[in-house]
């Protein structure tokens, strides 16, 4: 029986790019369940959200904000994974965001997701804010700050 020799050296560029594109495509198509909990660190007030969305636009050419979510995870588990320094968070759900026209897409580090915004208007930012519940202490910091 002829055995295939193990691959040596780096993958050919085209093959590597194809693999990476497949990974990204799958990640972007991954549908988080509506009931998945979502958190964002801080108060998420209008001014700070708008500035952060504009910073993102200035850098990447589209408005977006970061959130953290994991399927089948509690707020505490998501906060532990996010490891945010903020003393407060605001929780939501993927479904609440979708009802308002926002779809969190997993991107970057584990639990991190990006929510694209159509624009930086007060109406759009407030629609995003409206998906979140009132602030609560960051459970990842309970019993001592990890900051």
């Amino acid at each position, binding site marked *: 029986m002829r055995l295939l020799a193990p691959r040596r050296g780096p993958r050919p560029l085209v093959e590597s790019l194809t693999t990476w594109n497949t990974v990204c495509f799958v990640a972007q198509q991954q549908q988080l369940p509506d009931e998945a909990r979502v958190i*964002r*660190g*801080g*108060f998420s*007030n209008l*001014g*700070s959200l708008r*500035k*952060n969305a*504009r*910073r*993102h636009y*200035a*850098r990447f050419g589209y408005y977006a*904000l*970061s*959130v*953290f979510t994991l399927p089948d995870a509690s707020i505490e588990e998501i906060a532990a994974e996010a*490891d*945010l*320094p*903020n*003393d407060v968070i605001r929780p939501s759900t993927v479904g609440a965001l979708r009802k308002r026209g926002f779809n969190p897409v997993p991107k*970057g*580090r*584990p639990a991190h997701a990006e929510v694209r915004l159509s624009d930086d208007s007060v109406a759009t930012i407030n629609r995003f804010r409206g998906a979140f519940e009132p602030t609560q202490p960051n459970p990842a910091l309970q019993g001592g*700050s*990890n*900051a």
Partner: protein
Amino acid sequence: MTQPVTLYVDFNDLDENRNVPVYLVFDNEGVEVERDDVVRLDDDEGNTCLGYVISLDDGTAVVQPEWSTWKKRDPLSLTVSFHASQTDLNKLLLDSIRRTAEATHSTQTLV
């Protein structure tokens, strides 16, 4: 005492190493920083801390926050006043000098 430059960030953008990317555009436009510079990070909600610039690439600085200098917003104050303590600044500046010296030494070793 010279205060470090302020860079505006979103701490929700922390990467897997708990470093924060800072886009040197929009409200950070015109700020000049170099690798190993000590900077102040401000998140628009009153949370601040000092940090080191650990890399610069294509208009983005990656800053390693020094979490021991973290100061959360004052819930009783609408205005934010932050002045890094002399002790904090001295510690970070000494560390910055040490990092630069180590980087120079490793470069010379490679050469």
